[in-house]
């Protein structure tokens, strides 16, 4: 983050004039140049930071592979799980990554439908992050099972025994929910990228780039008919993806909410999980965007205003999450169920209280810094807060899963959970995989939706500009 100085500040709130979403003197051409340059620049001009990050993350990915190999060869027992605590890091990681995956679709679909134009600068980014996070997430249910060689039985695969999955199981709903979400997100992301891939294709100098981007661009030629089809399809997919944003994490929360376990068995989980997912997702977008925009010179496209908006979302969802934590406690007291109140009391005071208070600090206390404008508009500060949230959201899932399992109904079965080195390295490896995929994305695909950003540049709005200025009606549909 070398270039904090000289930051283009568009975070003012002047009702008379909307702040521009693209900084300084960008026109269409310079924007295209800037974004395409990220993938087109020769290897030696790639910032050293990228190389270092890639070296670390790809090594971690190898570690992940080694851990999975060890796990498969030996058994789930290489993790620190035990009889009451049947899930630990595995499902914590799963829920964590699924949660991360929420921001992308929220930004690209819901904000699209709400005509939040600032989304254009970050949506590509966030969608890519979604895809990679969901890949990491899908890994865990796959590898956490005892007999990994038959994990595919979770899918509804017709077979001669007419044996179907058990449709009442939330774990099966997960398979469908996350699977659908992944598919739609992938389509959405890829489809939205086609015009930009065509741009890359058109600018390609080497043969291999020509071929690869040519294939990926699927013959896009920018005709009015193409654009028309594209925008219809985009709208449709956005409409399809919107309910998914809410449903995926609701379904994931059903894993817990539909059980009988104190601490899991709560109706608050679906909204609480969705808010938490958006919270965590935005934090991860920030975590990735802040260095990336510095490295690749995208500060004028992913502007401070973008970041500030995300910080506001973070603050809002952080408060919802904090409220949910309070509600849980209130209900456990109000419900007067001895088992449930114990679970919550022991979260705060029991053997895992350190995890609980880490979670509270990271998720509830840390985001309160965003009440200060200074923090909202200073990249390094928000980077720190966002990382607190990343950590906090991981601990939230850890607290929910492990504390509830470790001490449930029968005290004779109470136990604790201490993860093994395999679990730590697997978690690190999954972060490595996520970052590796993301770094490759930055380097080889258009990190900003150029075509979309152009529509929100002043040059793209020459016909409406006048009206906006005098009508003060910024959100009227353009067409």
């Amino acid at each position, binding site marked *: 983050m070398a270039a904090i100085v000289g930051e283009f500040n568009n975070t003012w709130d002047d009702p008379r004039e909307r702040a521009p979403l693209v900084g300084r003197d960008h026109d269409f051409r310079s924007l295209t140049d800037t974004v395409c340059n990220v993938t087109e620049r020769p290897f030696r001009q790639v910032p050293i930071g990228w190389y270092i990050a890639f070296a670390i993350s790809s090594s971690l990915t190898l570690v992940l592979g080694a851990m999975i190999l*060890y796990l498969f*060869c*030996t*058994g*789930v*027992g290489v993790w*620190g*799980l*035990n*009889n*009451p*605590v*049947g*899930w630990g890091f595995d499902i914590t990681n799963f829920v964590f990554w699924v949660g991360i995956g929420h921001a992308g679709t929220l930004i690209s679909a819901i904000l699209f439908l709400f005509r939040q134009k600032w989304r254009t600068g970050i949506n590509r980014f966030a969608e890519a992050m979604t895809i990679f996070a969901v890949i990491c997430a899908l890994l865990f*249910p796959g590898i*956490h*099972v*005892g*007999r*990994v060689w*038959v*994990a595919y*039985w*979770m899918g509804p695969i017709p077979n001669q025994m007419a*044996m*179907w*999955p*058990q449709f*009442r*199981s*939330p*774990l*099966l709903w997960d*398979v469908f929910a996350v699977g659908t979400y992944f598919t739609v997100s992938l389509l959405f992301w890829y489809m939205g990228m086609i015009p930009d891939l065509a741009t890359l294709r058109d600018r390609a100098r080497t043969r291999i780039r020509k071929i690869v981007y040519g294939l990926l661009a699927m013959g896009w030629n920018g005709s009015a008919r193409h654009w028309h089809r594209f925008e219809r399809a985009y709208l449709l997919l956005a409409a399809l993806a919107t309910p998914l944003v809410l449903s995926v994490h609701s379904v994931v929360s059903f*894993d817990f909410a*539909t*059980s*009988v*376990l104190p601490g899991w068995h709560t109706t608050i989980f679906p909204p609480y999980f969705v808010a938490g997912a958006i919270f965590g997702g935005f934090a991860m977008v920030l975590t990735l965007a802040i260095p990336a925009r510095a490295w690749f010179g995208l500060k004028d496209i992913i502007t401070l205003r973008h970041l500030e908006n995300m910080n506001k979302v973070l603050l809002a969802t952080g408060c919802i999450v904090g409220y949910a934590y309070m509600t849980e406690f209130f209900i456990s007291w109000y419900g007067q169920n*001895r*088992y449930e109140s*114990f679970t919550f*009391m*022991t979260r705060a*005071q*029991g*053997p895992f209280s350190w995890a609980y208070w880490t979670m509270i600090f990271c998720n509830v206390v840390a985001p309160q810094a965003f009440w200060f404008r200074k923090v909202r508009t200073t990249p390094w500060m928000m980077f720190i807060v966002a990382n607190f949230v990343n950590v906090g959201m991981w601990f939230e899932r850890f607290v929910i899963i492990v504390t509830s*399992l470790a*001490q*449930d*109904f*029968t*005290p*004779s*079965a*109470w*136990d*604790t959970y201490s993860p093994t080195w395999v679990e730590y390295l697997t978690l690190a490896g999954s972060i490595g995989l996520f970052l590796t995929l993301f770094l490759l994305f930055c380097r080889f695909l258009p990190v900003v939706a150029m075509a979309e950003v152009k529509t929100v540049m002043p040059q793209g709005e020459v016909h409406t500009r006048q009206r906006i200025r005098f009508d003060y009606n910024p959100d009227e549909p353009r067409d």
Partner: protein
Amino acid sequence: MTGKQHWRSLGELSDSPRFRAFLESEFPPLPEAWSASSRRQFLKVMGASLGLAGLTGCRWPKETIVPFASRPENRIPGVPVQYATAMELGGYARPLLVRSYDGRPIKIEGNNLHPFLAQRGRADALAQAAILDMYDPDRSVNPLKRQDGRAVPRTWGEFLAETREPLAKLRAAGGDGLLIVSQASSSPTLAALRERLHSECPKARWFEYEPVSFDNEREGTRIALGAPHRTWLKLDAADLVVSFDDDFLMSHPAAVRYTGDFAAARARADTDRTMNRLVVIESNYSVTGSKADHRFAERASDVPVRLCQLAAELLKKGLKLPPAAATIAEALKGFDAGALQARYLPELADDLLAHAGRVLISVGPRQPAEAHAVAALLNGALGATGKTVAYIEAADAARPTHAAAIAALAQALGGDGRKMVLVLNANPVFDAPAELNFAELLSRHDAIHLGLYADETAAVSGWHVNAAHFLESWGDARAWDGTLSIVQPLIAPLYDGKTAVEMLAHVLGDEKSTAYELVRGTHSAAAPAGTFETWWQKALHDGFVEGSAARLKAPGVAEANWAAVLDSIRSAYAPPAEGEFELVFAPDYKVYDGRFANNGWLQELPDPITKLTWDNAAYISPADARRLNVRSGDFLEVAAEGRTLRIPAYVLPGHARGSVTLPLGYGRRSAGVVAKRVGFDTYSLRTASGPAVVRKASVKRGRGSRELATTQDHHAIDSALGRKEMRGRVPELAREGTLGEYKRNPKFVETRAHIFPLHQLFAGADYSQGPRWAMAIDLARCTGCSACVVACQAENNVPVVGREEVLRGREMSWIRIDRYFTGDPESDEVGVIHQPLACQHCENAPCEQVCPVAATVHDSDGLNVMVYNRCIGTRYCSNNCPYKVRRFNWFYNHHGPKHPRSGGRWLQTKLTDIEKLGNNPDVTVRSRGVMEKCTFCVQRINAVKIDAKNNQREIRDGEILTACQQTCPADAIVFGDLNDPSSAVSKLFGNDRAYELLQHLNVRTRNRYLANLKNPVREPEHPAEHAQPHGSGHGAAEGHAG
């Protein structure tokens, strides 16, 4: 019927007498017996056929095995057959019935014909686990000869060849220089051979040694009754049982019988609202103590004094002593109860006098002979002798005590000259008194060691010969009550092992006779001519010889020097001094004296009280722990008589202050891989002067600590919050009341929990057709003896996971026994309640709803079944199980990386062929990555169901026995069909004490617990009662002391 008549022949048509006669000769009618209507007749014939089955299936007398050219009669592949046999432990037989599949013994159960077991066929944990010893790959598989410090494998033939000559020389010398060390044995065949040895080699000396024995009782009764006796407790006839450090419900050869009698007397509360009362005065918390209505923690060395104080108190209150003991009255005056502040004794004396004639005083085997003498005296005076206590005269009155024998042996070995020492199954190098330094003594001589394992003694013996397991051998033994059993083999010796009698025959120059011939020879000599074969077959079939039980006697008190007896007690007593400890050596509940140390089932069996596995520890009281500043797992330095031992502490609530209990049998130096690095050798502190109790020892905190692998209270419930919650929860989970409360409010269990109105939104499955299997567990009967846990393990191929995995919390047992302490841990009366917990087979099973692949489902009988083949191992079911009774295979548990035998390798190693033999073929051996849990022994249900269907009959109540139920010595577990209103389980479901665990979850379990009952002298001051069952605003009962 109208219409034309059809006929086959003229003869049939005419139906003349001649035709009928012809028909009869052509098609003889069924044999009489089959058509006879007499049930007795039928049973007799059935018995005979079973007897014949016994003869066809077992190990042939002809000891060669050839493949069957044709199938022997009554042998159907895959259909199990049962044979009666017996296991001898400490010189007393435990009568057994062993189930064998295709020639492989698989499951040991108690002999259900045996009078000693009251025809109830129960077996304890040790006996049931013995089958694993037989299949133990660590057993020694061939004779070993020590050459240049190495053990070289040899054959039995080579052994015979090499020892023939020296033995012949010894015989020629009249046995001079021949020393024989054996375990205690009641075998008539061994006794006969011993006789023969004595007549042929009069100079040979025989030493019988057991580290744990009833010698004190023998000597005590010798004082009091004039001759050594065994005590026979009639617990069903006693209303008040006072145990002075006697763990008769667990550490006793008759524990299985006693437990049954005791439990029956407990359960009278349901029928006639009376109950026996058990008062236990002991140092360690024993299983018997856990059933006590009043338990007083006293140092073991104080117990004899307490007994005398009680006697003094009784005399004061007017107890009349027999004239032979009149002199004691004066001597007892020195034992004033008040002076030593045993506040409970006056009350106990009152209670004893109030119940005179129906009381019983028992004294534990580690208490000195004098205490036994006083107890025999009191039992006589209280009218117990003959009514609640009987005596069996010891057959071998002349035998020196084991302590004397081992001392004499050491002396003989320490003398000049190289001797030939024959060690028969004993392991004195490990378990002899430490100061004798037996390893060194024995290594100076030519020793032949016969044993199952190449153990510590084998390591210093010139020869080691692999012994046959009792399931592989012919033999005979007597139970505690004297009943004779023939030990018959279930299988040919896996490693061609030899029995003690065969070895002895060899010593006598008889290399030809097999154990079979020797045993038959012993008994045929005694049988009237011509009747032996019948006698033999009946003995084999029944598993005992009818009428061979010893006569129960009620001898009067003999003239004795009672003053000397009391003097001895008084002089041994020292008042507790601050910072001083006594050491109490106790046989371990699992490895006994160490001989079962290589048995994985037993090592992993949680101790009934401490829940320790894979370790022993020094049990100390919480007060002492606080003073020494130690917590469970911290090392203690225990020093006595110049010897020190470093052993982790286990803080046991209810343990006597100033006392340390050291379980024996761990820390084996030379045993199999299972026993390796397990526990601490407490024999190293045990000397001849204090074989049971060391009066003076110093105990201080040592350096470091060791994590103890307990199956409960993992990491000791870290938070104060958790402990507080437990205190609130346990009265609701493991409910308990007093007899008085039960009388006032038979439905007192309902006051223990807040019962919510339970609604179900949708109709559940209809189980009204067909059976509705269910189980009821009576906590008032359950003693926590853990026989069910081993039974389940054996029946269901439950794997052993090893210490590391238990520490991780991954033990696999399908049925666990939850042990909760009740009451104030600092008070005297810390109670214990045991609650066996297996799958509850919920009708609304939470596990089923969450499995993504339908691997756990309900079958048509309403059983919650686990489909191993379908399970992919998400563990979601276990997470959602409120009882946490599901067990996950984290690895290949039978042979995976954590298996003690795999040596920590990543990938699975193969099971040895021998290990494979030991699995129950009716039950799947589960793979890595699948969930498993109690099935209600579905294989047993189906076996009966199939038979019933084939024979077109109804399943009788009690015909299906789950493994845990079958073996429960207390009859605490009952299984059956709820749709049959007359079934035992239906009745128990309707019992006033019945409650459903975690009823508020509305999972509708098929299990009911019957609340525990205590029968204290007075009702507790704050009875845990709430008059209003529901709507009173709070359902949590307060903690209450037993």
